[in-house]
C-alpha cells in the first residue's frame, strides 16, 4: 500500500486499484461453497411456504411491519415478545465473540456480505475481462470500444446482481409472490421500489468500486475485533523465520520465500501478508492457497503462509512444533463463550415452548385510584389488554380472587365473558367494587389476583394487582 507516484507532501492519496488473481486451493473451494450456500439462503428464503391456517400468511419467514408480527417457520413473534429478537441479537454477539477469539476475523473473510458480494463481483469481472494481467492491461489502456464494451457488460451484470439483491430484501417484508407480481406490473408500493433502488446502487457501488475501502475506512468491526483476539487466536501469518531472506532458491542461505508475489497478487485487499498481520487483512485465506501452490511446485513444505497464533510463532522460532489447531480452538475462553451462547439459546427455546397462546396485561387505573359510588361503595378500575394469539376467536372469562370480598364487573358488558377476535388485541375495562364499609373498602390496599381463562381450553393466566380502599 505504498504510494510510489503520489505527491509525497499530500495528505490524500488516490486509491490503488486491486486486481486479485485467480487462485485454486482448499480455502478458495471452501469460500465458493460458503458463497453459494449463503447467497442461496438469502435469495430463496422468502419463497419458502409454510401453512399456518386460514387467517395468517403462508410465508415461512416474514417480517410483517404493518401487522406488527414476525413469522419464522413455526414461530410467531408478537411485538410484546421482542425479547426473542433481543435474545437472538445477544446470541449473534456472543457467536461473533466466540468465532473471533477462536479463529480471528473469520466473519470478515468468509461470511460478511461485503466479502461475499465482492467475491461474486470479482468473479463477474474475471468472466468478462479475463484474469489479473488482462484486467491490468485493460485498466491501463485508453478508453476505446473494447474497454467501453467490457466495462459496460460488467456494470450491467453488477447492476442486475444488485437489483436481485435489493429485490430479495423487500420480499422478506411482504408476501413474495404477490409483491413480485406487483413489482413487474408496476403496482407495488413506492417504498418497495425505493428500497430496491437504494440497495441496487449500494450493492453495485460497494461490491464493484468501494470494495476493500469499505473494510479499511468504513467498517468499525476490524477495530473492535482486535479487542477480542489474544495470543492463542488463529490468524493468518507468514512464517518469516522460515521464508527470509527471500529470493532465488539457487542462492545459498536464502529462505523458502522466492518472492514470487503470488500471495500479493491474489489478495482482494491488495496487501502483502509478509508485512505481518494488519488491519486491512480480512483473513480470507487466499494467500495460503496461492503460496501452498507455489511451495508444492518448488518442492518445499506447505504452509509458509498459514493459520497460526502468536504463541505458535514463539514456539516455532524456538524450534518446537506449533500447537494443534484444536488446542487453539478449545480454550477456557472459547468454552465459556460457547456455554454462554448455548445458555441464551436454551433459554430462548424454553421460553418459546412455555409461552401461552393468550397474553394479558393489567393496568390499574391510578387516575383516580378509586371512585366512591352513590351507595358509598368503593370502586377500582383496571384496564386489561387481552391478546388472542390464535387463529380462531376466543372467549375469555374474567374472575377475581382477593384477600377481602370485592365484586367484579365489566364496562359495557353484562356478565364476565369477553370475546376477542382471532389474532387480535382488545382492551377491556374491569371494575372491582367493595361494599360500603367492607374490609376492602376501608383498607388502604388489598391484594387481588385477576384470572383470565379461555373458555373450553386449559389456557389460564393471572395477574396480581392491588385494590385501593378509601383512605379514612
Amino acid at each position, binding site marked *: 500500500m505504498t504510494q510510489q507516484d503520489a505527491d509525497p507532501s499530500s*495528505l490524500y492519496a488516490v*486509491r490503488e486499484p486491486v486486481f486479485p488473481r485467480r487462485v485454486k486451493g482448499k480455502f478458495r473451494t471452501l469460500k465458493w461453497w460458503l458463497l453459494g450456500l449463503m447467497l442461496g439462503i438469502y435469495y430463496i428464503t422468502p419463497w419458502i411456504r409454510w401453512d399456518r391456517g386460514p387467517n395468517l400468511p403462508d410465508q415461512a419467514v416474514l417480517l410483517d411491519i404493518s401487522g406488527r408480527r414476525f413469522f419464522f417457520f413455526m414461530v410467531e413473534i408478537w411485538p410484546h415478545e421482542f425479547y426473542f429478537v433481543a435474545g437472538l441479537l445477544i446470541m449473534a454477539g456472543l457467536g461473533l465473540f466466540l468465532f473471533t477469539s477462536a479463529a480471528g476475523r473469520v466473519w470478515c473473510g468468509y461470511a460478511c456480505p461485503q466479502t461475499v458480494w465482492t467475491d461474486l463481483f470479482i468473479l463477474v469481472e474475471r468472466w468478462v475481462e479475463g484474469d489479473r494481467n488482462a484486467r491490468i492491461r485493460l485498466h491501463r489502456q485508453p478508453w476505446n470500444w473494447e474497454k467501453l464494451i467490457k466495462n459496460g457488460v460488467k456494470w450491467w451484470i453488477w447492476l442486475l446482481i444488485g437489483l436481485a439483491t435489493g429485490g430479495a430484501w423487500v420480499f422478506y417484508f411482504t408476501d413474495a409472490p404477490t409483491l413480485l407480481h406487483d413489482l413487474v406490473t408496476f403496482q407495488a408500493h413506492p417504498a418497495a421500489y425505493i428500497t430496491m433502488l437504494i440497495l441496487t446502487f449500494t450493492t453495485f457501488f460497494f461490491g464493484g468500486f468501494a470494495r476493500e475501502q469499505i473494510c479499511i475506512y468504513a467498517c468499525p468491526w476490524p477495530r473492535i475485533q482486535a479487542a477480542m483476539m489474544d495470543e492463542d487466536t488463529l490468524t493468518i501469518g507468514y512464517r518469516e523465520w522460515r521464508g527470509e531472506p527471500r529470493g532465488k532458491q539457487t542462492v545459498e542461505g536464502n529462505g523458502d520465500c522466492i518472492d514470487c508475489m503470488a500471495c500479493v497478487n491474489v489478495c482482494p485487499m491488495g496487501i502483502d501478508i509478509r508485512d505481518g498481520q494488519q488491519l486491512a487483512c480480512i483473513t480470507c485465506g487466499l494467500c495460503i492457497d496461492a503460496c501452498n501452490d507455489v511451495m508444492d511446485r518448488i518442492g518445499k513444505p506447505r504452509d509458509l503462509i498459514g493459520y497460526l497464533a502468536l504463541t505458535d510463532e514463539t514456539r516455532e522460532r524456538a524450534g518446537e512444533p506449533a500447537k494443534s489447531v484444536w488446542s487453539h480452538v478449545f480454550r477456557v475462553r472459547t468454552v465459556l463463550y460457547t456455554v454462554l451462547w448455548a445458555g441464551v439459546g436454551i433459554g430462548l427455546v424454553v421460553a418459546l415452548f412455555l409461552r401461552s397462546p393468550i397474553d394479558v396485561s393489567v393496568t390499574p387505573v391510578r387516575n383516580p385510584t378509586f371512585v366512591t359510588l352513590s351507595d*358509598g361503595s368503593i370502586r377500582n378500575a383496571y384496564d386489561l389488554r387481552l391478546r388472542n394469539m390464535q387463529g380462531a376467536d376466543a372467549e375469555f372469562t374474567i374472575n377475581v380472587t382477593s384477600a377481602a370480598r370485592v365484586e367484579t364487573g365489566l364496562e359495557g358488558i353484562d356478565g364476565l365473558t369477553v370475546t376477542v377476535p382471532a389474532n387480535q388485541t382488545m382492551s377491556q375495562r374491569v371494575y372491582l367494587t367493595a361494599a360500603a364499609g367492607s374490609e376492602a373498602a376501608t383498607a388502604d390496599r388489598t391484594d387481588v389476583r385477576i384470572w383470565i381463562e379461555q373458555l373450553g381450553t386449559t389456557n389460564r393466566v393471572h395477574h396480581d394487582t392491588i385494590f385501593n380502599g378509601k383512605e379514612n
Partner: protein
Amino acid sequence: MCAKPIKKEPREVETTGHQWDGIEELNNPMPRWWVWTFYATIVWGIGSSDLYPAWPLITQATPGLLGFSTRANAAAEIASWDARNAAIKERLVAADLNAIGADADLAGFAERAGAAVFRTNCATCHGSGAAGVVGKGYPNLLDDDWLWGGTMEDIHLTITHGIRNTTDPDARYSEMPKFGVDELLEPAQIGQVAEYVLAMSGQDHDAAAAAEGATLFAENCGACHMEDGAGDPTQGAPQLNDAIWLYGGSREAIIETITYARFGVMPNWNKRLSEDEIRAVAFYVHGRGGGE
C-alpha cells in the same frame, strides 16, 4: 516550512520528515475519494441551506426556496387525517346516540376521538382522569351519580348547551335560593335542615334537630331535591341521600351550601366543538363507568 518528505524502502511507511527526539512523524495518506466526499458534503450543505430554512435571523430563519415549513406540513397532515376520517365522522353524526356502542368501528373511533377532545377541553375542570375535584364543585364523571342525567342523550345535551352559562340561551338552568343570605331561613333553622340532610345520607346527626329539619326540608327543599332527598336530574338538583357530595358532605359544608347556595357553571361547547366531537366526547364520558 517543513522538512522534505522522506521515502523509505518499499513496504515501509512514508514519513513527513519531521523528527522530534528521534521520533518520526509517519504519513499514512487518506484515500483521495475521502476528500471528494468532504467537498460533496459542502456542496450538499450549500444546496440544502438554499432550499430549506437554515440561517437564523432575528425573528425567523431564512425560508428556503422550496417553501418547506413544518407548521404547514402539520396542517397538511391534520387536513389529510380529517379527510380520511370524514366518512366515519359523518356516520357518527348520523348514528342513533345509543347505537354507537354496538358498532365496533364507530365505538373505537368515538372512544379515541372522545379521549382526545376530553383531555384538550374538559380535563381543566373535570381532571385528566375525569374524576373531577371532589368537594370543590367539579363533578366526578366516573361515578353513578349524575346531576343532569347520565344517559347518552342527557350527556350530549349537557355538553352541547352547558349549564347556567350566559352564552347559550338553551343552557340547562336552575338556581338554588340563598336561604341564609336572603333570610329565607333563620340560622337555627338552617342548622336543623343540615341535621336532616346528614340523617338522610346516613351520617352522624342530632335526631331531635333532624326531626325539626324534616318539616323545613319538605317545605323549602322538597320541590327540587324531592322529599326523600332523591334529587331531580331534570333540573340539576343533586341527590342528597347518597354518599356523593359535590361541595362536601360535612355539617359545615352543608350549612354553607344552604346559607349561600351554589351555582356551578359549565360552558356550552356547541361553539367550540363540532357535532362529531361532541358525540365522541359524550360517548367517552358515558363509557367511564357511570353511563346510564
